[in-house]
Structures are given as C-alpha cells and as structure tokens.
C-alpha cells in the first residue's frame, strides 16, 4: 500500500502479526493515506463495507518490512506494541482499542495538544464525559493514582491514566471548534472538532459542532475570578500519557491544528499513538519536574510500599513517592489515636538524603544551614533549615553528624543536593555532596520505645536528636530519635531492599502493643497539633524562619551564613509571625483563608494549616499574622467561605496547640 507523503506527515499504522483487525476497523479522514508497516510479508484484503469515501482503499505496491527505528523521534516503547499511529500536525484519527490494551499518547516535539475522545458501550454509544469524570474523581483532570479514571455518560469507566509525564491537561473546554476560529477571524480554519467529525462518520457517529474531550497537554487554568485561561503547553518532546482501556473502545485523537494562539505554542506538530498489548503491567506513575535542569522523576514505590499495598488501596503521590493516605478498615481517626495513645508506623521515604563529605563539609553546612554545628558531635542531629540570601527558607531538614568531615542532610527537596554543591563550588570548598538512597520508617508514639526494646535495645537509650548505626537482626539500620508527630519516636533508615523485612518486623513486634500503620491524613493532623512545618504551607523561599515560627533555629551568633544580613533585619521587624489559633466551634479552616482583626474588614494574616484536634477537642490552625496581633490571648476572626458570610472567632496561642513544651518528644 502506497503512501504519497512522508511518514512524518501522514497518519500511519504499524501492524504486528495477528493484529489485522486493527487495520480493518481503522477510521480516518477521507483524504488521508495510511502507512502500514509489518514485520513480515502481509496479505491485505480490502472490503468496501459502504460507499463512503473512507473505504476507497487503493493497493499500489507490495508491503515492505518496516525500517528499523521508523520513528526515531520517540522515546522507546514501554512494552509490546500492537499498533501505532502517527497523526500529522493538524489532523485526527479514530482507532479501536480492546479492553485491557494500553494507549500511549505521545507529544512528539513538545508543546502540542492532543484532544481525546472515547466511545464505549454497545455500538460505541456511550461517549466519554468530562463532566462526569470531574465529578466522580474530584479532579479537574484525571491523574495517575486512585482517582485516575475517565468515565462515560453512563458513568462507566472507559480509560484509566496509568502514567503521565506532563501533569497539565484540560477537561473543561471543547476540542477546538470552527466557531472559535471564525470568531477569531479565521473562517474555514480546520478544527479538532471538525476533524473528529470526519474520522468518526464511518462509525455512524453523528457530527457535533464541538466535541467535549479530554484535551491532553492543553495548558488551561482557572483563576480566582472564574476565568479559564490558557498558555503554551508544559509538555516537552516525548512527554506522554498512558491510558488503560477498561472496555472495548473507539477512540479518536487529534494533533490540534490551532496555530493562532499559544495552545500549541503557535506551531502545530505531530502526535504519536502507541497501542500496547493487553496483559502487560505498567507501574502507575506521574512525572515531576522540580527544576529546569533536573530530569523528569516518575512516582516511585519505597521499599515499604509493597507491604503497605497489602493494607490499603488509598495511596497518594507525595514528593515523588506513593504513600498511604489512610488504611483500609482502619481510617485516619484510628490511626491518629493509635499514634497519640500507643504507636504508629509510617513511611517517610519521600524525604531526600544527601551525604556531605570532605574536609570542608563542616564549613559548607555551617554556611548553608541555619543552626550552629560547632557543638554538634558525632551521633547527634539537629533540626534547622537551608537558607537563601534574602533569608527565605530553601528547605527545612535535619543534619546528622557522623564526624567533622562527614554529615548527612535529610530534607524534602531534590534540589537540595544541587544547592549545596553550588555553594561549595562558589566558595571553593573541598566537599562532595552525594544523594543517599535510603528509605525510612517512623515509629512514633508513647509506646514506641517499648516496641523497640525487643528489636533494637541499644536504640532505646538514644536521647532526643541522637542517632546510631546498628543492626536490627541482619538488617543494617540507622536509627534516630527524631520524628514529625509531636510524640516520642524514632526513625529507621534502611536500604530499600530491606524495607519489607523491616516493616514486617516492626509491625509484628508492635501489634501486641497496639501499633498501627499511619497514613498521611492522620500524620498531617498530628503535625499541625504539634506545630510542625510543612513546605508550601508554612514556608517557601520567600518566607523567613522568623515568619515560619522557627526563628529559634537560626544561630545568629555564627560569624557568617547565607542570609544572615537579611535575617538580622527581618528578626527586628518580621512582616508576620507564626502563631497557633484555637477556633470557636468545630468548623475547620483551610490553608490560605484570611485572618481578620476582630470586627474589622482588614486582614491581619492568613491560615497556613488547619485541622480538628481530637485530643484537644477543638478546631485548631497555624497562621501567620502581623506582629501586633501575635500576642497570646488576642482574639481574631477567621474568614470561612468568602470571609463575609461566615467568620469564626479564634484565640491566638502557641504554634503547637498540643504539648507546646515538647514534653512528650523529650520523654
């Protein structure tokens, strides 16, 4: 079968053995040619089922073996490919997919939208419905993880996002329409909706002036005024979405022809579709890009996740890892109370660890980290933060001291490693900064020491913020007397390969004492009670330690460190300071809600985190307010809803509403 256009310009289908039915049911625009590639000689039978133009197939030449690397502009296949299609810029195709197969939609050159339709049910009568999908998933766009499915009008699952390397798509707007182009002064401009109408017509699907679609890579956003805006896609060359088909589907995909605005960055380019065989296994993952110069990072399991998956299906993405949100048949309330009354076990492997070694290791951390490390001896750890030159918090974390030329920083950010290296290079310091691939569990709660006693007796002697390296059975482990819950507790760092064994041993040892696994939902409640900071809530790189509530962790007496000059000024006149609030009544505030002066229209601060505290039986919040309203006992008002319809009185108190003197962690 001939093709009078180059492969990069014409939609093409690559067939694998025994997959001929795909060829026979292919739908395409009537004026398009198809490129068929087979790994062996192929007999093609054409049957004209109707007089429609799409059936006018013309056999012109014998099929040839495909050239290897036919699509050299693509990332390698993820598995066994049974068909693939190249959609030329500005065009669209329809293609059948059977239940269990996977659809990979690849943005070949980057910055290109690909609108997607799917039809399930009998005779493809049940189309994908973005409104149903948003409603059932609670997300603007499906993403890999628990709420990952796209649903039909009949509320049946059609597809499920398995992997997504872009993370920014649209489910609100129609596939582009002729009307849009007409209104913009481009009458007759091709549109995705018209292209879909043409390729769907052979399947008896009635045309629509505009198709509601999932618009992959379309970078739309909703602002606080309700306006939907769009900009150039965030997708890079090779970015993709991998979908699992939950039923036999007719799908349609476009390479959007929009060249009159930034939707495709003004230059439409091709889209590539790969269909993978059913029965394969693909990890669920979403891609994260945390810096322009860092590679894409896909969501990963920790060494503990296989054990955790036995206990819950409710996992969420957190800082590049799948972590439990709540546990089945248990719930966050039970987890929370287990933590406060007995013990909880949680996976905190998403923390980033870097070793800082060399003769200038001390100098580097003394300069980059907020605490004074002069008196920190081997086996001790200290909490503090990495700072930037204007006194903002780059990250908060813990420095572990192994010796004067060897430290470990445990924080939150992939960029910490690069940040420390750049400082060392700029200062000419002899130091190596190396990521450490350790995963860690936190064993926390009033009976955590008792649980540990049988497994690692030497660990029970650790003082607050001390650590040691030991063996738990045959498992090498670093154990520290640290935590993120406001309870007595320990963190245990191990090689990922030892994760399952450590999890099982701790759970078995702790079960008689009432140990329960703890999810992120319960952990968040506990850390808010304890006044512990979360990045993106209490701090970012524009917020100083004094505003975030950890001014005590800044060693201003150090001769020099990053941001010292700026922090000296901020300390005297912080724009806001962190406080705790106890709200009147049970309603729970939310991040970003305003804090008003009593009876006034003007704000004095805003909520950074909030929760209902079961142990205090009160709605509590962490907030950052102007200094004049930070005194304990001051009564302010928290604006719920829009801040006009409902306000709740709140009383200022310590940042940690629960155990503000930290008596429990120092036990």
């Amino acid at each position, binding site marked *: 079968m001939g093709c009078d256009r180059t492969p990069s310009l014409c939609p093409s289908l690559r067939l694998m053995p025994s997959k001929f039915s795909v060829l026979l049911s292919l739908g395409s625009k009537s004026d398009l040619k198809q490129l068929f590639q087979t790994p062996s000689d192929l007999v093609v039978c054409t049957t004209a089922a109707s007089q429609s133009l799409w059936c006018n197939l013309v056999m012109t030449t014998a099929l040839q073996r495909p050239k290897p690397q036919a699509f050299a502009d693509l990332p390698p296949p993820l598995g066994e490919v049974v068909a693939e299609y190249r959609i030329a810029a500005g065009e669209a195709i329809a293609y059948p997919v059977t239940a269990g197969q996977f659809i990979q939609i690849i943005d070949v050159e980057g910055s290109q939208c690909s609108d997607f339709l799917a039809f399930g049910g009998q005779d493809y009568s049940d189309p994908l419905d973005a409104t149903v999908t948003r409603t059932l998933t609670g997300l603007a766009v499906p993403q890999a993880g628990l709420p990952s499915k796209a649903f039909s009008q009949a509320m049946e699952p059609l597809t499920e996002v398995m992997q997504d390397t872009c993370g920014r798509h649209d489910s609100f707007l129609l596939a582009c329409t002729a009307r849009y182009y007409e209104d913009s002064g481009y009458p007759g401009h091709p549109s995705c909706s018209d292209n879909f109408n043409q390729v769907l017509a052979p399947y008896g699907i009635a045309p629509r002036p505009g198709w509601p679609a999932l618009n992959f890579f379309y970078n739309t956003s909703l602002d606080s005024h309700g306006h939907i805006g769009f900009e150039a896609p965030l997708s890079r060359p090779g970015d993709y979405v991998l979908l699992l088909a939950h039923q036999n589907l007719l799908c349609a995909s476009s390479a959007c022809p929009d060249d009159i605005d930034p939707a495709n960055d003004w230059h439409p380019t091709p889209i590539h579709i790969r269909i993978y065989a059913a029965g394969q296994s693909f990890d669920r993952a979403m891609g994260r890009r945390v810096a322009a110069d860092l590679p894409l990072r896909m969501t990963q399991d920790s060494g503990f996740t296989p054990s955790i998956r036995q206990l819950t*299906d409710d996992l969420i993405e957190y800082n590049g890892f799948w972590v439990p949100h*709540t546990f*089945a*048949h248990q719930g966050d*309330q*039970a987890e929370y109370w287990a933590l406060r009354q007995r013990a909880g076990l949680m996976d905190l492997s998403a923390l980033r660890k870097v070793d800082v070694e060399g003769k200038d290791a001390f100098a580097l951390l003394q300069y980059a980290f907020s605490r004074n490390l002069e008196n920190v001896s081997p086996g001790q750890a200290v909490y503090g933060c990495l700072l930037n030159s204007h006194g903002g918090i780059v990250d908060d974390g813990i420095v572990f001291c192994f010796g004067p030329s060897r430290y470990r920083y445990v924080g939150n950010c992939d960029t910490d490693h690069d940040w420390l290296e750049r400082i060392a290079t700029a200062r000419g310091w002899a130091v190596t900064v190396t990521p450490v691939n350790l995963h860690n569990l936190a064993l926390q709660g009033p009976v955590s020491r008792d649980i540990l006693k049988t497994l690692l007796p030497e660990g029970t002697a650790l003082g607050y913020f001390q650590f040691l390296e030991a063996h738990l059975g045959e498992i090498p482990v670093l154990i520290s007397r640290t935590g993120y819950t406001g309870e007595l507790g320990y963190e245990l760092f191990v090689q990922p390969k030892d994760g399952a064994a450590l999890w099982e041993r701790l759970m078995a040892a702790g079960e008689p004492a009432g140990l329960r696994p703890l999810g992120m939902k319960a952990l968040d409640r506990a850390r808010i009670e304890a006044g512990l900071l979360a990045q993106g809530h209490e701090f970012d790189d524009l917020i100083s330690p004094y505003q975030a509530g950890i001014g005590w962790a800044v060693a201003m007496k150090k001769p020099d460190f990053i941001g010292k000059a700026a922090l000296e000024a901020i300390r005297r006149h912080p724009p806001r300071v962190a406080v705790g609030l106890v709200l009147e*009544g*049970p309603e729970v505030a939310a991040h970003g809600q305003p804090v008003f002066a009593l009876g006034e229209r003007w704000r004095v601060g805003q909520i950074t985190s909030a929760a209902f505290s079961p142990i205090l*039986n009160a709605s509590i919040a962490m907030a950052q307010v102007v200094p004049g309203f930070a005194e304990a006992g001051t009564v302010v008002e928290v604006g719920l809803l829009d801040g006009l319809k409902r306000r709740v009185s709140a009383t200022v108190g310590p940042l940690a509403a629960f155990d503000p003197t930290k008596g429990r962690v120092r036990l």
Partner: protein
Amino acid sequence: MSEVTITQPWDLAGADGLVAARALFGEPVDHLAPFQSMETELEGVPCAVLRLCDRNFRITYPGHLDHRVAPLRLQLWVKRLDWMGRLVLPNSPSTTAPTAESLPAIAAQATVRAPHRLHSLPLHSAVPAHVATFPVLVWHHPLGDRPGLELHLAHRHIENFYRLIPAFKGRSVSLTTASS
C-alpha cells in the same frame, strides 16, 4: 432461623454533627473514622452509632433522637430517611467467629470502589458497595447478641434485591419500615 427486629435508624448531619454526637455518646464517637461504628447506649437503651463522614452519623436508636438533640440548639438536622430501608442478615447461633456468614456471598456479587474493601470487612465497619446492580451500604456490626450484616438500601430496591440473591434465601431477614 432467628428473627431480628430493627427499627429505622436516625441520621444526624450538619456543621455541628460531631458536636451533637459527642454530646450524646461521649468522646469515643470521635475515635471513629468514617464508615466505622460502635455499640453504645443512650439513656440506657442500646444502640449503634455509624460515622459516615466527619460530621454525619447514623444511629440505631429506637426512641425519639430528634427530641434529645433539639435542646442542644445546634446547627444540624436529625431525621429518619423515609426512602431508605434495611435488611438484616444475622449469623446462625452456632457461629462464634466475629464475622458475618453472608459476607462472602455478598462480596462475591459486589463491586466496591477503592479505597473501600469488602473482603474481610471487620466488625464495627461499613462499606458502600454495589451488590448485583443495587447500591447498598453493608454494615458489619453486632445485631442483638451476635455479629451480623445490616444492609441499607432504597426501599424500592429491597424486594428485588432479596429475590435476586439466592445466597440469602433460607436466612432470616427482617425488613423494617420507617416509624417516626
């Protein structure tokens, strides 16, 4: 076969739902996660409290719960849902394990959306499910002196639901109607 007679539960929901539940049943009610329940007493009358979300509860109290809540003057509603009925599937007296005998039969015909799990549903727990084509809340908790399954579903589905599941035949079923 044994008969368990039950009455229509009360539903309690609103901004002050948790406040009301704590006032009625004490602090233990706040130890429940959504879809967990506890057996308790109110004014000496045994009842079960099922938490449905942070502030919503379902209570198997035979008396006038609305009269008990009204003096609290809270922001919430208390009512019996007249469109909802209950099926009760108790264990046989010979069963000693704290599981419901009918659970495997129901689970075999049920679909449950993650993160809920019907398999090995513990006592004092509930799960929203579809059994065959019917939306059902499956609640595993003590019924009388034995654990059993209490199924909540729309009145209009109860008769067909019962007929459609042979595994339930021969077992005692108590169909309640609202009595306010």
